């Protein structure tokens, strides 16, 4: 009743509903009988027409419904009143059964948990490595992944620009089951601050970018890279002196050819100039513990073939 200013409107609606229902009953009762002249035996005469005449001679014949049909109408009145006592409907009165849409939804969820809980709990008690070897668990994990993760990481889990590939062995924060689970549960904020001011001039930025490319053996200008090496100190705090990154901070390894945003000189310069701000949302409030567990096993299995091999073996 939040749409109304005060309690009165709830009462008003209740009064209208009661008057309408009782009005229907009164109408029904008043229209079920008619006053007619008595015949010779002193009995009321049969009713031939309703007395309505149109165009002079078009009469409405009395075509009576069976009496039980009238009783059905009375039953609907009783049913309606009974319903309004038991269920919400009479203004702001909540009904004696305490039924509500939210309550019905919560009951469905509870029933669902009771039905699927044992299955989920079975997997929750198993080690990630063992869950990954279970074909049924993997199928659940795949469906969860396609529903929850595929929007960013792709249906094949290979990611795209800005969204990490989950099928290689290159992990920003670490690829052990525990870390994957933490990532899903808590989410990640991958922030690289804009470094242009620290690195120096535009030329310095270009030189550092060439040095970064040289770390992975990508095409680069060796002279500019040599100039850039001394400026890399600014980057080393996170990416390490050797550029191999730091999983504790989520700082990427710059010495491989896996690039989150792109491996060309312009993209790297853009990253140094403007920084990066990347966000993986936390899923602890969206998914149950057991679902996170199953999802972890699925994601872990994508880069650890042992689980899949075990499943293939079971099939043979």
């Amino acid at each position: 009743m939040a749409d109304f200013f005060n309690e009165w409107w709830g009462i008003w609606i209740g009064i209208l509903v009661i008057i309408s229902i009782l009005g229907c009953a009164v109408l029904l009762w008043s229209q079920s009988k008619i006053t007619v002249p008595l015949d010779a035996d002193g009995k009321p005469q049969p009713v031939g027409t309703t007395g309505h005449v149109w165009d002079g001679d078009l009469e409405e014949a009395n075509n009576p419904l069976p009496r039980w049909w009238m009783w059905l109408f009375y039953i609907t009145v009783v049913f309606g009143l009974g319903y309004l006592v038991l269920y919400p409907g009479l203004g702001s009165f909540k009904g004696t059964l305490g039924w509500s849409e939210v309550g019905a939804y919560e009951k469905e969820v509870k029933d669902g948990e009771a039905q699927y809980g044992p299955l989920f709990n079975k997997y929750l008690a198993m080690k990630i490595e063992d869950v990954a070897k279970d074909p049924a668990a993997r199928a659940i994990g795949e469906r969860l992944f396609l529903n929850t993760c595929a929007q960013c990481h792709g249906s094949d889990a290979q990611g795209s620009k800005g969204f990490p590939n989950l099928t290689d062995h290159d992990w920003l924060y670490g690829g052990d089951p525990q870390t994957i689970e933490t990532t899903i549960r808590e989410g990640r904020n991958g922030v690289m601050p804009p470094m242009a001011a620290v690195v120096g001039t535009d030329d310095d930025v270009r030189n550092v970018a060439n040095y970064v490319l040289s770390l992975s053996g990508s095409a680069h200008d060796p002279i500019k890279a040599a100039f850039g090496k001394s400026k890399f100190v600014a980057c080393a705090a996170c990416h390490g002196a050797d550029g191999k990154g730091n999983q504790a901070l989520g700082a990427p390894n710059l010495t491989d050819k896996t690039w989150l945003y792109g491996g060309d000189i312009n993209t790297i310069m853009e990253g140094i100039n403007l920084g990066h701000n990347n966000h993986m949302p936390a899923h602890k409030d969206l998914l149950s513990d057991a679902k996170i567990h199953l999802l972890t096993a699925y994601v872990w299995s994508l880069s650890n073939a042992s689980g899949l091999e075990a499943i293939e073996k079971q099939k043979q």
Partner: protein
Amino acid sequence: MEPTPIKQYTKEEFAATTSQYGEQTLFEVHEKIYPRLTHGWFSKWRWVLVWFTQLIFYGGAWLNWNDRQAILFDLTARKFYIFGLVIWPQDFIYLTVLLVISALSLFLFTTVAGRLFCGYACPQTVYTEIFMWVERKVEGDRNARIRLDNGAISAKKISLKLIKHGLWLAIALWTGFTFVGYFTPIHHLSAEVLAWTLGPWETFWIFFYGFATYGNAGWMREQVCKYMCPYARFQSAMFDKDTLTVTYNVARGEPRGSRSKNADHKELGLGSCIDCGICVQVCPTGIDIRNGLQYECTGCTACIDGCNDIMDKMGYERGLISYNTEHALENGLTKAQMWKRVFRPRTLVYTGILWTIILVAAITLANRVPLKVNVIRDRGMPRVTETGAIDNVYKLQIMNALEQSNTYSVEVAGIPGAEILTEHTIEIPGASNRAFPVRVQIPYGSAEKGSNKIRFIIKDAKNPTVSVTEKAVFLVPR
């Protein structure tokens, strides 16, 4: 009944005339109908159809197909099994077709011979027939039943009524049980009934359907046809002057009157109708067919059988009441002429449409591919690899509509050099579906920037004639 116009009285008038006026109900008090048993050609046919429809209904649920029930409507899994066929929600069009065929058949049969469906195959008629058979066996025919109902309460009356209602309820509950047996496997259901572990919905529907059968066939009977059935009200829209209906031959019958069997009624100035009232006594809706075609008439033809019996006894020609047409009666057509007029444009058009739909439905059903595919492209930017090749990722929702597990192969076409880098084959268990991620890669420069058309071809690995081609787009970054 002479119509009595109703005057609206003022209070004063009413007060002044109250001694001469009384209250009359505007609702009809139901009068029980006691149809008399008939024997004859049409009665036999009705029983043939009772047996035919009910053997299918009561027996069909017990048939098995391979290791499952042959006819099962699995609502929770949204799969309908009809012998070898598995119908999915995607096949809903076939239900529409079935309903269209049913409606058109009804139009056709109604145009040809009125309410054939009502008289012989409608569940209301069929169950009423079964219930009346029980009633006759327990309480006797019309006169015995009237005597029993009018008589004082006695031990015999109570026991007969108990037996009748007991039998009725048994049949009704068995009907409800059979009905639910088409939605829950009936062998499983019977085990549940024996152990009394029925679920709440199974219990509800068994008793609801059973109660509806008991109420409709035992108590409501002709009132269902008179007050509830919409078909009774719009049937006249499908009638024309050549429609065969149950008709009393007024010219031959009138003037009606009783006479001695040996008297020559023509000399007495009488028609063939001896006014015995049998046609009224046998009528399950309680009408007098001699008043002409009425909406209450369900075309059950009990009056034809009843009257023919009397005509035989009187030594008159049969068919005072018979299937006849308005046209034939007006113009004195012979039987042959009358039957020839069944083939008139109206019925031919109905027949033509009906057979066209049946044929089209049968052909599409026979060629139905038991494989359904939906392609969803992953949203977002395509990937560009180090070599400049471009990846697009798709989710293929593949549904195996067969009952056995099956392997499918996926191919891609439409862009030169396009290939699938992920797995090409997928095994899907019977009667289920799976989402299958597919990564398609095209070499650098093999397609225009922007949106390009590609096709996925999904084939049954064992039987490549079963294949589905789905269109999709492949995005190339600008």
